[in-house]
């Protein structure tokens, strides 16, 4: 069995209650309530192979967390099949959760009032990890995440970055083959983010750990995942390599110029007359941006034309950022990739 996660036609519906207006409405609500069926996850199917690192992205309310909660056995699906690590998460919950690790960025799973190491000790017992396994594995984790000095502090005294590193360590106590990360880098500074990313890469290489990651920080995905699954209003709208997404949808490049002398936009536009260029001007920093197709010849023609007329102080060639691509997709609500 090579798939860590297999999902078929997974669906989750919630009842959304609405209140009637006014006092009489409130009284009527006491007896009968209006509700609508809202579909959070709409018949999605996908598989994740063992050892893969997959980014699971989508806007707020797209159904990411709901999917994760079904995959981890917390919520019961309305319909559809799930098989994770060869088990049905909801049916065999206690046996199943032994094989996964979960980090919820927005909730702590450490005990708030006691020292971190006491939490670890309890989790070690809960997951029935032997002393030797614990020493082999956790000493390494603790060293890599650099949390040794935090172990004897109560969780409530830790900063967010310190806590998240401890959370991650706590999720790995039983060295699970599958790791779910729900916004693990939310609110963290760059250094901690980098540390966490490096660490995730390392355990993925070392133990072939499968990782499913949801995040709004696309740099996380770029750094870690080769594959992304994109969700919108409960539907999978893209499932494939991140690179494809960029190549197909990263329409064109950006040329940024800064000039030594004061130049106005009309003059710059005049220079590239007849070429398919869209100019924009950032008034504050006086950066002129040319949005053009990704064609090598055109790029050099634009640069030559501009450089022939104006003195250039600084110049950059940018690819359209993933962030921009994703934003475009969210706005359109669909992806046309083969």
């Amino acid at each position, binding site marked *: 069995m090579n798939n860590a996660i297999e999902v078929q036609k997974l669906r989750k519906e*919630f009842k959304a209650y609405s209140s009637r207006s006014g006092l009489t409405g409130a009284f009527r609500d006491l007896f009968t309530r209006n509700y609508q069926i809202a579909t959070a996850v709409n018949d999605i199917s996908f598989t994740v192979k063992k050892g893969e690192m997959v980014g699971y992205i989508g806007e707020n309310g797209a159904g990411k*967390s709901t999917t994760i*909660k079904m995959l*981890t*056995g*917390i*919520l*019961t699906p309305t319909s559809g099949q799930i098989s994770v690590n060869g088990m049905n998460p909801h049916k065999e*919950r*206690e*046996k199943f*959760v*032994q094989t*996964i690790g*979960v980090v*919820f960025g*927005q*909730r*702590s*799973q450490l*005990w708030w*009032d*006691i020292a971190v190491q*006491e939490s670890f*000790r*309890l989790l070690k*017992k*809960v*997951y*029935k990890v032997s002393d030797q396994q614990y020493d082999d594995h956790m000493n390494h984790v603790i060293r890599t995440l650099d949390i040794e000095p935090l172990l004897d502090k*109560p969780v409530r005294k830790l900063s967010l970055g310190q806590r998240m590193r401890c959370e991650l360590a706590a999720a790995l106590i039983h060295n699970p083959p599958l790791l779910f990360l729900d916004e693990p880098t939310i609110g963290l500074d760059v250094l901690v983010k980098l540390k966490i990313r490096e660490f995730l890469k390392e355990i993925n290489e070392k133990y072939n750990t499968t990782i499913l990651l949801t995040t709004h920080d696309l740099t996380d995905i770029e750094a870690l995942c080769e594959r992304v699954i994109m969700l919108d209003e409960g539907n999978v709208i893209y499932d494939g390599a991140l690179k494809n997404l960029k190549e197909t949808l990263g329409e064109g490049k950006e040329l940024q110029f800064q000039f030594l002398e004061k130049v106005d936009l009309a003059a710059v536009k005049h220079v590239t007359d007849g070429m398919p260029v869209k100019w924009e001007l950032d008034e504050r920093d006086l950066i002129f941006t040319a949005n053009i197709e990704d064609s090598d010849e055109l790029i050099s023609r634009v640069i030559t034309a501009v450089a022939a007329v104006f003195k250039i102080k600084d110049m950059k060639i940018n690819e359209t950022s993933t962030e921009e691509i994703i934003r475009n997709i969210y706005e359109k609500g669909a992806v046309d990739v083969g």
Partner: protein
Amino acid sequence: MDKYLEMIRVRFLMMLAYRTNYYTGIFIYGINIGAYYFLWTAIYGGKEQIQGLSVIQMTTYVAISWMARAFYFNNLDREMAMEIMEGKVAVELIRPYNYLGMKTMQGLGEGIFRLFFFSAPGLVIVYFIFPIRFTWDLSVWGLFAVSILLSFFINTQLNLLTGLTTFFLYNNTGLIRAKRVVIDLFSGLLLPISFFPGWAQEIMKYLPFQGISYIPSMIFTKGFSHQQAIEALGQQLLWVIILVIPIQLLWHAAKKQLVIQGG
């Protein structure tokens, strides 16, 4: 089993983390016992006995009821309501243990902590202040120990039941408060069951509440004969078993329609 024992230990540590709560607790229990002692001496006036209990037995009843309460009492219902309302229950469900079992163990950890660091020293203090008669009959102590363990289970089960209703009601603060008042009144903590009118006593025979406070306190004050005590223990045990059923039903229903609040 290991993990459940570890949970008891962790709960111990948590109780130690909040020492102030612990000191104020002793103080409040002291005031309660004092207040009831003066109330009852006033009620007895010159009378030798009311409903077969002497004033000394009554004082002992009050003291022992409150000290037993320190052991069986816990806030599991409120904790569960919080966990469910804030969505923390999601974290509990990704762990390989039984949520309700773990909650019970947390309650037990709290109970044992209070028994040793609260009830025991408290009882010694109370013994010197108020005219209380302790029995030195070991069989009574034994029966009493079994009895308060069973009261712990009955009370905890009722708490779990109340806590579980949060899954369906989303906000059950009112229910939790009502439950506490009902338990304090009908368990015999405020007033021994034998002081209730006959018809009320008849009804309460069919309710689990007297198994929480009345039975252990009556055993300790020797208000029950040995035979009666054994029967009362059987009654407590019966309730522990019966209460498992609605808890399991509610838990299964809850898991089906669980909504994790707050994302």
